[in-house]
Every structure is written in structure tokens, then in C-alpha cells.
């Protein structure tokens, strides 16, 4: 059954592409600046954070805190925006779901796809900024595609599961909003892993069960280059890495399975 589903999805790959492009087009359709906003967003964030931390955190240990912050925040925003957008993607399209047949998973997939595009765009802006300030990259920077792939797998699995669950229980949407806020603070983005360890060191293994913590740490590791800019800021736990890979793949399979088991009832439920 799963193989049939995947074949069907493959046959509709063009629709997936079109729906992704549609998400992108519609987002900025009636704004004057359009895609400029996607570029402006990270630039403004960098500017604001640089300013704030230059004033507030004078004499902080980290010289390039803004780089550290951005290298974790952008992947996090990709994750959250993907979730928020895909959770409502099925219930938000009753006109399609009730009137036309197509593989329903295209809806959450397109939502994630559009966010991948935005993420790549914003990362590119961030990298341009890094090149301008003559950032010293480590060799690990070449791992960007792999880390991105890992994060996409994790995000997709969760998105598929949540978008299907939301059809049957609309609380899911609201729950995700609240949960991601808490999740944000359970992930080392605005504080460093070393800060956490110094405060609650014995909880570190539990803390690293959170796959997003591991994924964000990987991003920070390959972009921030701790060998040069401060080894204590970032570290990657090998067990956390292995665990996250396993969890992500299992979650994707489970999420897709859950979606295909429930999708037959979608048209009746929304």
C-alpha cells in the first residue's frame, strides 16, 4: 500500500512542484516588495541583534554572538514555520480536498517545500553577510546539505503527522503554537550549550534527547566554526546525532503511514 502511495505521489510530482510554487507566489502576491521581504528579513534580524547585543551584552564572552544566534535561529524558524503552515494545510483547503482527488500529502509537503525555499534564500543572505565580514569557515561547512536533509526529514515526518491529526482534532493547531514556544527555549538558540551545561550539567543527556537541540547544534557547529571562535560555545554529541538520525527517519515513516491511514476520511471531516 505504501509503495502504491509513493508511486502515486511520484506521478503527481508536477502538482507538488506547482503547489509549492503557488505557496511562494501567493505569499507575497499583493505586496509591493514581494520577494524582497525574504531577503530583507535576515538582514534586518542581523542588524537588530548586532545592535542589541552590542549595547546589552557588553563584554560578553562571545565576540560573534550574532553569528552564533543566526546559525541556530534560521534553522529553527524554518522548522517552526514549516510546522505551522503544514498543520493547517489540509483543513485550510476544503475546496480542494472535497472536490478533487490528488495525493493529499501534497498539501503538507508543499507547505514544507515553500519553507525550504525560503530557508535556502535566507541562509544565502546570511552567508553573503558572513563572506562580507570575512568569516573563517571550517571544512565542516560542506556538510550543510546533509544537515539540511536531516532537518527536512525530521520536519516532514512531524508535519505529515500533525496535518493529518489536525483534521480529526482541531486542537492540534493550537497545541503546536504553544508547544513550539516552549520547545524554542528547550533548544540552545539564544543561549549556548555550555551555559546550559554549567547550570544543569547532569541533565545534559536528557536535554539532548530533543532532536531539534541536536539539529540546531549541528548547524551551529558547521557554520560558527567553534575551533576558531570559541570551542566552548558549541559541541555536537555523537549519540545525539545518531539518535536524531534514527528518530527522524522513524518519524518520517510513521508520519507518512499515519497520514495514509487517515487520509481517506479527510473529505468527510472538513
Amino acid at each position, binding site marked *: 500500500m505504501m509503495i502504491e502511495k509513493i508511486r502515486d505521489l511520484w506521478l503527481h510530482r508536477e*502538482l507538488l512542484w506547482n503547489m509549492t510554487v*503557488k505557496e511562494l507566489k*501567493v505569499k507575497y502576491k499583493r505586496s509591493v516588495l514581494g520577494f524582497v521581504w525574504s531577503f530583507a528579513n535576515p538582514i534586518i534580524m542581523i542588524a537588530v541583534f548586532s545592535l542589541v547585543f552590542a549595547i546589552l551584552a557588553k563584554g560578553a564572552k562571545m565576540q560573534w554572538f550574532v553569528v552564533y544566534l543566526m546559525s541556530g535561529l534560521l534553522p529553527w524558524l524554518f522548522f517552526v514555520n514549516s510546522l505551522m503552515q503544514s498543520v493547517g494545510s489540509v483543513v485550510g483547503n476544503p475546496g480542494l*480536498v472535497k472536490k*478533487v*482527488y490528488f495525493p493529499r500529502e501534497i498539501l503538507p509537503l508543499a507547505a514544507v517545500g515553500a519553507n525550504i525555499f525560503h530557508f535556502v534564500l535566507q541562509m544565502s543572505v546570511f552567508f553573503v553577510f558572513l563572506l562580507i565580514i570575512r568569516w573563517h569557515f571550517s571544512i565542516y561547512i560542506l556538510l550543510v546539505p546533509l544537515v539540511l536533509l536531516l532537518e527536512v526529514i525530521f520536519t516532514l515526518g512531524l508535519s505529515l503527522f500533525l496535518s493529518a491529526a489536525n483534521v480529526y482534532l482541531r*486542537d492540534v493547531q493550537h497545541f503546536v503554537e504553544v508547544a513550539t514556544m516552549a520547545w524554542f527555549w528547550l533548544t540552545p538558540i539564544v543561549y549556548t550549550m555550555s551555559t546550559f551545561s554549567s547550570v544543569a550539567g547532569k541533565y545534559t543527556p536528557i536535554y539532548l534527547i530533543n532532536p531539534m537541540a541536536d539539529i540546531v547544534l549541528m548547524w551551529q557547529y558547521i557554520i560558527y566554526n567553534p575551533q576558531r571562535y570559541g570551542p566552548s560555545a558549541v559541541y555536537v554529541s555523537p549519540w545525539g546525532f545518531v539518535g536524531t538520525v534514527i528518530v527522524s527517519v522513524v518519524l518520517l515513516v510513521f508520519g507518512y503511514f499515519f497520514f495514509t491511514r487517515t487520509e*481517506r476520511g479527510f473529505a468527510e471531516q472538513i
Partner: protein
Amino acid sequence: MAYAVEVTDVSKMFKLHHENVKSLKEKVLFFRRRGYEEFWALKDIDVKVEEGDTLGLIGANGSGKTTLLKCITKILYPTKGRITTSGSIAALLELGAGFQADLTGRENVYLNASILGFSRKEVDKKFDDIVAFSELERFIDNHVRNYSSGMYVRLGFAIAINVDPDILIIDEVLAVGDEAFQRKCLERINEIQNAGKTIIFVTHNVEVTQEICNRVIMLDQGNIVKDGAPREVVPFYHKAMEPEEESRERGNLRIMVTGVELLNGEGKPATEFYTGESLKIRVSYLAQEPVEDPVFGFSIDDYRGFTAYGTNTGLKGMNLGTVSGEGVIEFDLKSLPMLEGRYFVNLSIHSRDEQTVYHWLDRHATFEMNSRINDVGLLYIPCEILVNP
């Protein structure tokens, strides 16, 4: 002959929730209560549609027509039974389903076609046809948001009908658009038929089924009640759709109709007539008191209420003088020109100035027209065809 669609013992049950329990709190609170009733929209439906068939589904509202279409197109899944289809399907359950208001007509053509399952390449080839069909050349690069509902509908139909599916499924959307556009749609459907494609559609306009279907199925409360050629099924449908026999009559009854007979050429009562036969309407009346200068009349309506023909003694320039007691009046129709369908006889007795109605009977008698002539339309008009090579 291969089957394009095979529906085998399909039943579909909907849960009618008493209250739409959708939040966690309610789910927990009402955990033990079975908050729904079962509603079977389809009951053991068995249909095999052959390749190249044009099948019309008719039936009252709520009879299950749309549910069946949705099951065939995999939007809904049957509770029991199995449906197999072969070939690509384009379903038009709602015109412009999935149109994005903030995209242009052009962008929507591509998006919509890919929703229907067609590739960019295929659409590229058909794009000009689609635009020409929709007559929206000037507006194709405008946002769909600014389209009128007519334009919306034309574009939606143009896409579905031009992408060349093996099976075309249409739900009650032929009724939109002006007459010229409808005509164009029917012509296009004819082309699709000639190309050997399968068409399944739902309509309330049963006359259309007679025009384009080779098979009609009538559904009622989830059951197939009639399946066959349009000529058999459509009259059956009309009969079923007739409002309850409530003879609408009015008048002061100073003269009243006491009996009506429809007689055929042999002078025998009949309810079925063939085109070209004669029909005699024999009306018995009773005048309670002498009435001066009454007018007797009748008219024949078709099932839609359109009057096919009517006349009365006044229009014929007759003066009946003073009428009293019992009597009989006969309207002798020499030759019925109607082809097929159910007709109703209305009767009236009123004063010459029509100010006083003595007795008026709507749809008092009914008869069925049959025809041995293959021509189409409402009436038979003798026609010779001359060919000058």
C-alpha cells in the same frame, strides 16, 4: 468490451454527528456517548460502465448521485465494496475547484490542470485551445480574483474539457454559463464521445441526458431504481418526480366538470398516444342553474408547465348561448404533433370576459406521448430532405 469504471457492491455510510465534536475537551467529555447516527448514502450499488459509454446519473436531491461520483474519483472511500477504474480521470465536481484568487488566469490554468493530473507539457499543447474555448483571451493574464462568476466558470470548464482525459466526470456543472456557452460545451462533449472516451455525469436537467447519454441511471435514497436507455428512464423519472396528486381547482361551480375522458382514434379511453394519432377530450358538465354565454376550454401542458397547445370556444368564435343541466363537450384533436413525454390536460369553464370562473381544473388528466419517429425535439414537423448533388 472493457470496463472504464467498475463499481462493485458499493455502500457508503456517513456519520451524522449530533454535535460536531472536534475539540479535545469535548472528545473527553463525550467519550462514552456515540455521538452520531448512521446514514447510508449509497446501498449496494453495482454499476459497470463500458469504455466509450456516456452515463447520466439522475435522481432527486440527496439520492446519492454526487456521493457516487466522489467515490469513483477517490475523494470519498466506500464503506463497503470496491471500485476500479482504468485510464486517466478528470473530475469536474465544482467548477474552478482550487482556483487561486491571487494568481492569474494563466497560472491557474497550469495549476488546475496539474490538480486534474495533467503535465505542463500536455497543458502547453492545449493552452491556446483552453483559452480560446473559455473566450478569455483578453483577461488570461489578469488575476482570477477580478473575474466575474461567468468567466470563472468558463475557465474551469475549458480546462477540464480540453485536457483529454480517458474518463470525464461532471457534476451538475453543465447548467452554468449562457446558452451559447452551454451549446459549445455540449458540442465539445460530443467530440469527446466520438473520440471513444467515457463520460459520467450528474444532472437535474434530464432533457440533456436524452440528448447525449446512451445510458441513464436513476438513483433514489442510495439505490439504483432504474437503469437503461434514456427513453426508458427519463419518463420513469418524471413520473417519480410528479408532485403528489393534488388536483388544483377553483371556481364558483355554477357549471362544473363532472367527468373527463381521453379517447383515442377508436373512441376508447387511453393514456398513451403515438405521434400523429388523434385525441378526443370528452368533458361532461353539469350546470346547476342556467348560465349565459359560458366559454369551455382546455390546454395541454408538458411536465415543465409549458403549454403545448390550448384553445376554447371563445377563441373559436363560438357562442353557446344559455347552458343549463347536464351536457357533454368534445375537443377533437385531429393529430398530436408531440414526440415523447408526459402531458397534462387543464380544463376551464368561465365567462366570456374571464371575470367569473365557473370551474377551473389544473392537471386534471394526464397522458403519455410515444413516438415511432426517430427525430428529436418536442414536436414532429413533417420534413422532407432534398439533396441536390
